[in-house]
């Protein structure tokens, strides 16, 4: 299992377009990918679950992956969050 913790820095948080990109990226990997925030852990391949978390700017999240490509998955998603989804 690989995990990484980071803070959401982009203005809109993980809603709308960033949420779509996040899920698309997570879905590229075979590993089970989860996102943990505000004491809840949900499936990172579900746009509904991610949107229902209300991940606004400033929220601290942990990305957890478990499977054959877990390292790459965590890195790809971390890069995405840290690049602010290219939105600013």
């Amino acid at each position, binding site marked *: 299992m690989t995990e990484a913790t980071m803070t959401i820095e982009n203005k809109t948080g993980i809603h709308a377009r960033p949420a*779509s990109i996040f899920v698309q990226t997570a879905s590229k990997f075979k590993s089970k990918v989860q996102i943990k925030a505000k004491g809840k852990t949900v499936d990172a391949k*579900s*746009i*509904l*679950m991610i*949107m229902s978390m*209300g991940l606004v700017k400033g929220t601290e999240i942990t990305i957890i992956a478990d499977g054959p490509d877990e390292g790459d998955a965590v890195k790809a998603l971390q890069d995405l969050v840290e*690049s602010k989804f*290219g939105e600013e």
Partner: protein
Amino acid sequence: MAEIVKGKGVIAGIAIGKIMLAGQNLDGYLMAYQPDGDLDAEKKKATDALDKVAEILQSNIEKLQADGGAEQAAIMEAHRMMVQDPMLAENINTQLDELHNAPKAVLAAAEDQAKQFEAMDNEYFAARAVDLRDVGKRIAKYLLGVKEPEIGDGAVILCGQEIEPSVIAGLPSDKIAGVILGAGSTTAHAVIIAKARAIPTVVGVGSAIEKIADGDAVILDGEKGDIVIRPSDEDRAGYAERIKKQAELKAYYEELAKLPTVTQDGVKVQLMANIGSPDDVDNANKYGAEGVGLFRSEFVFMGKQDIPTEDEQFKAYKEAVEKCNGNLCVIRTMDIGGDKPLPYLQIPPEENPFLGFRAVRISLKRHELFMPQLKAILRAGVFGKAAIMVPMVINVAEILAVKKLVEEAKVELAHEGKAYSDNVQIGIMVETPAAAVMTPVLAKYVDFFSIGTNDLVQYTLAVDRGNANISYLYNHFNPAVLRLIQLTIKSARENGIWAGMCGEMASDPYAAVILMAMGINELSMSAPSIPRVKEKLRAITSKRAEEILEVIMGLEDGDDVKAQLNKLI
């Protein structure tokens, strides 16, 4: 007397047409539906429907992308992801265990998820609840064999408490004259789609929407938010004039946008657009802009916590350059100073910011700011025709310093293995009297001049345009200003480089005529000004314009110039 219902106008324009109520009632179909007695078979029907609907959405997305409907495509993409969401699938399965009916289970699951979103008490999530119900309905319709609404010959006005975005996105633009929503959300996807298509729209009508029936004739005013139900002939006459003018102007501008900017005797002037963000290029193209004469790169810097990275800037510039379709995209480097301070630049307040540490003066001192911008522009140049335009230049030394940094930027890019263009023009804004007077010399070092009249007028006449007591002195037809402009254009011509203008003067049709006579190559302005300027230039001969120029250059006073131009053109 017709009844008028009021809402909030969100997309301007007058629409007239028959109401089509959107948001179909599926009750009848649901009653007629025969579920499979075998639960597993029913579950398989639901799973197959999810796959099939995702497939249909995917093909819609590809069509929209091919038609340039990127925004609508993004919304459909969100829907597709919802259809394929593991959480929704699980919810449908749970509902099926109880209901034994695929379409009912799908609707119940979508409703359940939508309610959770609504409970979050946030306008954004309330709007997503609409998307979810839309998705549920779409899947249910597929299972029930219900066709999506089809529209006949005439355009209709769609009306509903909430309208599924897919209904609007799925219909051709010319079949929707207007949109009325009972709900108040301006962030609804339906509204975003309507905006992208410039469909007059009124939202927030509330329960009064029940007064509007299917097939009713209505007039919709997307500016004021008025909806006139079953208008009388008198009502129609009242709006007819506005509709006629709106249509005529639109048709005229569309025609004009396709025509070249050329005088009666064949002199060409290139009309370009001033933009603040890459998205503005779409609008500029509609008005017939031939490229971008001024991309104010400040927007990339404003509203940020920190200095934007090279990649962030590259993305923005590349998008603008690509959207110019082979026409030139002139990117002005950071034009920031003490009057528009940015916290992360940490420039102390100044007593005289317009004569202070600003624009190129900052760029040349703060390489950590300037280099990423130069590199981003050079990289964007690979995707079309880009140019670097330097603001506030007063001497040769500044140009040489910028050019040296551009060469350094190229070396760095080559080392980093990043593709860049070697054909990016480097020009300056002529917006200080010093630069204008020195244009015969400066022309030897640059590829173009672009005259920034807002500052040139202000610095030449020593008039702060924001000061109401002296605003009568601010006049771009002041002879001192005109002589500097004429000298700048002449210097460019004599040295074989091009001269343009990107200040407000460029959008003045009278000014355009004399600038053309002076020999200007390009005028850049806010896109909606282009048709008026083009109209004026197409109506005159360069010979006549030169005669007028000769007259006005002989005048001693700026106000006389204005008066003469009004008389002569």
